[in-house]
C-alpha cells in the first residue's frame, strides 16, 4: 500500500474564509482526511490554528527563500509557493500530492485523483479538455485567454515522488525566484504559464480531463451544465471540484470579475444555488472581516507599507541585496533607507522607490517622460499627492 496522498493549498490570510470552506468540503467527502494549508502570510491574529479544519504550514516550513517575502507581492507569494509546498509534502513521505487553488470547493469523492497523483510524475489539468468549434465566439474568447495565460490550469496539479517530478518542481520554483507576475511580453502569467513547458521536461504527465473537475468559466463554451437530481452535471459528469476563479462574492452576478459582463451567473442557472451557497459559507467564515486583513509581509518594521516598486527593486538587485540583512528592517543601512534615498544628486530629490515605479508603471512614465530632467519638478510635486499615495500600492504590472 502506497503512502497517503496529501491535498494542499496556499493562501494569505485574506483568503482564510475560502480556505476554510475548501478544507471543510474536502473533509466532508473524505472523512478522516484533512487538507494541509500553506499560509503565505504572518500567522492570522486571533486565530487558534489548532482549531482550524486543516493542518497549517508557514513559508519557513516549506523552505521558501526568505527573500521571497520581499520580492513577491501577496498574490505572487501565494501563487509561486506551489512547487515549494508540493515538494515539501512529497519529501516528508506523501505518496503523491494534489494542489488545489483556495477558491475551490470539493463536491464529491476524489479518490481517482489520489490514484492519478500516485500514478503519474505530474498531473496537469488543461483549461480546455476537448476540441471545439472556433466559430463559437465564447470558445474563441477562451482559447485566446488560454494562449496568453497557459494551457494548463494552476488550480489543479498533482505530483508523485519520482525524480523527474522533483526536478520539475525544483525548476518551477527556480524560474519564479525573481518574482511572479502577469507580464505577457515576457511570457509570464504568475506561476501558470511555466506549466506549458512541463511536456518538455517530464515524460510521465497524466492529463486530467474529467469535465466535472476544475469547473470554471473556461469549462462553459459548448458544455452542457445542468442540475440533475440536485447534482451539478457538466457534460454528463458530476461536478466534483468547482473553481470560483475571478468570482467576487460582493458582485455575485458577475461570474468572473475581470471579464466584466462576459460571463453572467444568471446565464448558467445550474450554478446559481451553488454560488449563493458559497457566498453564504464565506460570509459565515468571516469574509467581511478577512477580505481586508492586512498582509503580514506588507509593511516595514516601522509600519510603513512596502511599495510594489520596492519589491521589484529588491528582486532586481540580485546578490547585492544581502548587505541589507532583514529587508523589512528600518534605520541605518537598511533597504528601507536605500529605497527612500534620492536616485541622483539633482534637486529637488526623487526617491529611488519612485524611479523604480516610474520604470515599471507605464502610467507614471506617461505622465513624466523625463523624470530626472525636464519633468523633475512636476514629478517631485506629484510624489507628494494623494494620487501618488494611491499609485504607490498599485501593482507594477496588471494583476488579476
Amino acid at each position, binding site marked *: 500500500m502506497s503512502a497517503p496522498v496529501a491535498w494542499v493549498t496556499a493562501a494569505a490570510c485574506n483568503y482564510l474564509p475560502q480556505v476554510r470552506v475548501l478544507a471543510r468540503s474536502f473533509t466532508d467527502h473524505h472523512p478522516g482526511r484533512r487538507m494541509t494549508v500553506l499560509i503565505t502570510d504572518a500567522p492570522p491574529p486571533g486565530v487558534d490554528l489548532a482549531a482550524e479544519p486543516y493542518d497549517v504550514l508557514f513559508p519557513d516550513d516549506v523552505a521558501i527563500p526568505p527573500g521571497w517575502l520581499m520580492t513577491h507581492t501577496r498574490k505572487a507569494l501565494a501563487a509561486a509557493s506551489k512547487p515549494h509546498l508540493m515538494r515539501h509534502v512529497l519529501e516528508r513521505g506523501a505518496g503523491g500530492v494534489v494542489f488545489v487553488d483556495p477558491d475551490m470547493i470539493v463536491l464529491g469523492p476524489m479518490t481517482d485523483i489520489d490514484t492519478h497523483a500516485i500514478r503519474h510524475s505530474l498531473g496537469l489539468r488543461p483549461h480546455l479538455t476537448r476540441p471545439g468549434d472556433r466559430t463559437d465566439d465564447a470558445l474563441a474568447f477562451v482559447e485566446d485567454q488560454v*494562449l496568453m495565460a497557459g494551457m494548463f490550469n494552476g488550480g489543479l496539479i498533482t505530483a508523485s515522488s519520482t525524480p523527474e517530478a522533483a526536478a520539475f518542481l525544483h525548476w518551477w520554483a527556480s524560474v519564479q525566484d525573481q518574482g511572479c507576475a502577469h507580464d505577457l511580453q515576457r511570457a509570464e502569467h504568475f506561476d501558470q504559464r511555466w506549466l506549458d513547458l512541463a511536456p518538455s521536461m517530464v515524460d510521465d504527465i497524466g492529463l486530467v480531463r474529467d469535465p466535472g473537475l476544475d469547473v470554471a468559466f473556461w469549462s462553459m463554451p459548448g458544455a452542457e451544465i445542468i442540475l440533475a437530481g440536485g447534482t451539478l452535471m457538466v457534460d454528463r459528469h458530476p461536478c466534483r471540484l468547482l473553481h470560483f476563479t475571478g468570482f467576487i462574492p460582493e458582485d455575485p452576478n458577475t461570474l468572473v470579475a475581470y471579464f466584466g459582463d462576459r460571463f453572467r451567473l444568471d446565464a448558467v442557472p445550474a450554478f446559481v444555488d451553488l454560488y449563493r451557497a458559497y457566498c453564504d459559507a464565506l460570509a459565515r467564515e468571516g469574509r467581511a472581516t478577512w477580505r481586508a486583513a492586512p498582509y503580514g509581509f506588507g509593511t516595514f518594521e516601522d509600519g510603513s507599507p512596502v511599495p510594489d516598486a520596492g519589491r521589484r527593486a529588491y528582486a532586481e538587485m540580485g546578490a547585492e541585496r544581502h548587505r541589507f540583512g532583514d529587508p523589512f528592517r528600518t534605520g541605518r543601512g537598511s533597504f528601507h533607507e536605500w529605497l527612500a534615498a534620492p536616485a541622483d544628486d539633482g534637486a529637488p530629490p526623487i526617491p529611488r522607490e519612485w524611479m523604480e515605479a516610474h520604470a515599471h508603471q507605464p502610467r507614471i512614465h506617461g505622465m513624466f517622460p523625463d523624470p530626472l530632467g525636464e519633468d523633475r519638478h512636476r514629478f517631485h510635486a506629484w510624489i507628494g499627492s494623494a494620487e501618488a499615495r494611491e499609485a504607490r500600492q498599485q501593482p507594477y504590472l496588471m494583476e488579476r
Partner: protein
Amino acid sequence: MTADRGPSRHHDGPVTGGTGPGESTGHAGGGAAIDDLIRLIGTTGATPWATEGISMRAIVHRAYLRALRPYLRRRAEVDAAIVRSLRGITAEAAGLRAEAGAIREVLRVTEDRLETLADALASAGARARGAEERARRAEGALALHLIDAGTPARGALDATICTVVSRATIAHAHALARSVERVHPGTRVIAVITDDEAVDLGALPFVPAHLDAVVADAHAWRARHDGIALEYAATPDAIRFALDQADGPVIFIKQESMVVGSLQPVLDGLGHSALALIPHVVAAPTGDDADERTRDILLAGTFNGGVIAAANSAAAREMLAWWSERVRGECVHDVERGRHFEQRWLDLLAAVFDGVAVLRGPGLNVGHWNIGDRVLSGAPGHLRADGHEVAVLRFSGFDPGVPDVLTRYAPDRLAGSRGALDTYLAAFRHELITHSGMRP
C-alpha cells in the same frame, strides 16, 4: 576777391623735385596751405612788397617748403620702406603661389594614383570574394561529398515526407528531398508550392503539389497571408494532403532542414498515436541566457513546428482540420496575444486532444534553440546529439549570404567552430545556392 585769387593761381617755379610720388602729394597740399597763409596775413589790395617786385607768395612758399622738408624726407623714407615691404610680400606671395601650384600638382597625381589603387583594391576585393565564394562552393561540394560518402543508407521509410515551400524557397525542398534520398532512398517527398502560377520546375527530386490542389480556396489563403506566413499556414493542410496521397503515416519537415540520420525513431515515437510533436527543448535551458531562451520558447510555443509525424487516421485528420481552422484566418506573429504563426496552436492542440505523442529524443529535431544545450559529436553521416543519432538538422534563420552566422535570430549563437555541424551547414548552403541560382 578776384584780385586775391589771381596770385594764388600763380606757380612760382616748380615746387616738386620729382623725387617720388610723396612730393607730388605735398605740393598739392602746400598750394592750398600757402593760399591760406596769404589770406591770414590779411593783404587786401596792393602791398609794399608787391610794388618792390617781390612775390609774397614765393616767400611764403619757400618758407613752407623749408618747414615741410624734414617731414617729406621722413615720409619718403616710410614710403620707400613700405614699397620695399610690398615688393617683398609680393615676391613671397608669388613664391607661395608657385608652391601651392606644385602641391596641387602633387595632389592631382596622388589622387590619380589613389583612384587607380582603389580600382585595384576593388578588383582585388571582388577577386578575393569570388575566390572565397569558390572556396566555399568547393568546401560545400566537399562537405556534400563527405556527407554522401559517410551517411549509411537505411532503406525506404514506411512513410511519406512532406514540406511546404514557395518558388522563392524552392531550393529548400531540393535540399530536403536530396537529404531524404541519401538516408532513406526511395522514400517519397511531397512539396506543396504555395505560388499561384504553374512554374517550369525542371527535373525534381520531389513530387510537387500546388496549393490549389491542397486547399479548396487557395486564392483566399493567398489573399489573407503574406509571404512566409502563407507557407506556415499551409502546414496542416499539406500534411492532410500528403496523408490522402499515401497509405501510411506522414512526416512533415519544415523548410530550412536536412535529414541527416534515420527518421525511424520519429515513426516509432508516433506508434499508435495520431500525431507526434517534438518540444523545442527536452530539459530546462542552461547557461547565461537560460531565462531569455526559456521565455522565447514559451512565446514561440513548447512544440517546434519543424518536425511533425501524423498517422494516416481519422483522429489525425480531425486534429489537422482543427489546426487548419485556426491558422486559416490568422497566422501571425503576435506573441503578446499568444500567436506565433502556426506554431503556438500546437500547444493548445496537444492539450485539447488525446492521442498526441510527445517525442523527447535529443536527436530528433536539432536546431539553434537547443543546439547549445546538447553535445554534438560524430563525423558527417554519423552526427549525434547527447549520444543519440540526429535525425533532422534544422537551419532556421540561416542566410547563405552570411555563411558564418548559424541563425539570424541569435547571431552570436555557437559562433566559431561547430565541428561536424559546419560540414552540414556548408553542404546545406551549397544545396541552396545550387538550386536557387542565387549569387550571394
